[in-house]
């Protein structure tokens, strides 16, 4: 089957999921993001790459952080950005997604950033648009959230550059988490030797081992000697059965406290994709503690999103330059 994310020359055309992306592309995105980190520290926090391009943020599901960072990223690339909160627009009048997209294409949109509660929404749009238009998945249902996975790996690489020597634990609601899936794919593709998932059975997808992870139900055993602890949000709004006794009970068993964190390596870092439920999956003293890199994750998210948009809008990766200077 054709990979809709890559064009016939193997260049990135859409970013829909980390699954199916070769290591080469992941590294290209991470390395390019490295160059964008410094842009935020300049007097003029802008580069002219996407001048004259229009980026449409299509958010069919609420998100503050992701939408804002995509918007800032596009603006720092000099694009014009339109953020549509589709819940409050034509969709509520009965327009289909693809009709909304066609109308925006008629307005000369060049790129779509799509967030939707339904898995596969971004794929649907990517299959529909003409070749010069690019689609980025900003989270679809339980399926995938590739830029979050990439920014997490980027953050890990910043603090622990040798990915081939790491033990990483992902803790919490893996079942409902598109972030966890994207993280697992990115980490295993980039050669992290040991990825653990720590959760009660009710919050793990069936056959999660097939993703190449080690499963722990006991957090104390799972956190032992890890280099990175990635907490997941307890997805209350996605839970439609009684999978857990109560959030207090969950905190007692799986919430990250200083005592539990002490089981990890002394220089372990703590991550969380946000938004955090303090006192449910993470204790405030850990979230605000010196091992926490939760806010740097947000900052790096902008660089990652700039890199993805810059690579997509460039259409191709040149093997050389214009021929001298």
């Amino acid at each position, binding site marked *: 089957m054709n990979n809709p994310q890559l064009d016939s020359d193997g*260049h990135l055309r859409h970013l829909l999921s980390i699954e199916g992306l070769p290591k080469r592309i992941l590294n*290209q995105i991470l*390395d*390019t993001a*490295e*160059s964008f*980190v*410094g*842009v935020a520290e*300049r*007097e*003029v926090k*802008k*580069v*002219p*790459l996407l001048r004259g391009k229009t980026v449409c943020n299509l958010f069919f599901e609420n998100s503050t952080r992701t939408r804002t960072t995509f918007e800032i990223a596009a603006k720092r690339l000099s694009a014009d950005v339109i953020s549509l909160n589709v819940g409050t627009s034509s969709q509520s009048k009965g327009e289909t997604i693809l009709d909304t997209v066609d109308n925006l294409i008629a307005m000369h949109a060049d790129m779509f950033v799509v967030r939707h509660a339904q898995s596969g929404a971004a794929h649907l749009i990517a299959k529909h648009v003409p070749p010069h238009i690019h689609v980025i998945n900003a989270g679809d249902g339980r399926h995938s959230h590739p830029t979050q996975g990439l920014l997490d790996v980027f953050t890990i690489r910043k603090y622990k550059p040798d990915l081939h020597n790491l033990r990483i634990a992902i803790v919490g609601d893996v079942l409902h988490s598109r972030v966890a899936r994207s993280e697992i794919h990115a980490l295993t593709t980039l050669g992290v030797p040991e990825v653990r998932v720590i959760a009660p059975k009710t919050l793990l997808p069936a056959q999660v081992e097939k993703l190449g992870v080690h499963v722990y139900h006991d957090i104390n055993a799972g956190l032992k000697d890890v280099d990175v602890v990635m907490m997941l949000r307890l997805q209350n709004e996605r839970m439609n059965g009684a999978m857990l006794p109560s959030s207090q009970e969950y905190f007692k068993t799986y919430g990250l406290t200083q005592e539990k964190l002490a089981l990890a390596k002394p220089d372990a870092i703590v991550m969380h994709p946000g938004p955090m439920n303090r006192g449910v999956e993470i204790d405030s003293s850990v979230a605000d503690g010196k091992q926490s890199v939760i806010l740097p994750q947000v900052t790096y998210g902008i660089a990652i999103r700039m890199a993805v948009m*810059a*690579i997509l809008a*460039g*259409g*191709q*990766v*040149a*093997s*050389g*330059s*214009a*021929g*001298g*200077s």
Partner: protein
Amino acid sequence: MTDQNIPLSNTQLPNAEALVITLAQKLEPLLQNNTALVGIHSGGVWLMQRLLVLLEKTIANYDVEHGALDVSFYRDDYAQRGLKAENRPSQIPFDVENKHIILIDDVFYTGRTARAAMNELFDYGRPASITLIALVNRGGRELPIAPQIVAADIPLEATQHLQLTQLTDGSLALELTSQNNSARPQEHE
């Protein structure tokens, strides 16, 4: 060397290390207080590293700072060619505002890289002045931009490609290739 004397092979090229010394001699009188060197990746940075060694005393005297630019995000051919697979972060670890900037390029050709570099520099601040220096001016300008100091003028045909390379010991060499057929030589910058 004149237009009638276009080198056709590597054997007719001047020695790059000799050119570096010439360039250092020409550059030295320009160094003053409040000067900073900025190399353009990759060749310009290699060249800057050699100049930093050759002019070590003068540079220390005037407290000359240095940095590096990767102009990938400012190139005018981005829409056609996209981003290069390898780009490096630009590093300007000093305040550009009111500095006399010496912008360093290896082979000056169309002027497009210099334009991109100047645009990028201005996003860091407003320099007092920018002086463009290059090891070789190969002709073929497409913009009204020219280096103020070069070590050699070597006019070349459009089909010829002149590239600076860095050897494992850090010394520099010039390499000339011709692109007669469709095959493009591997260019780095």
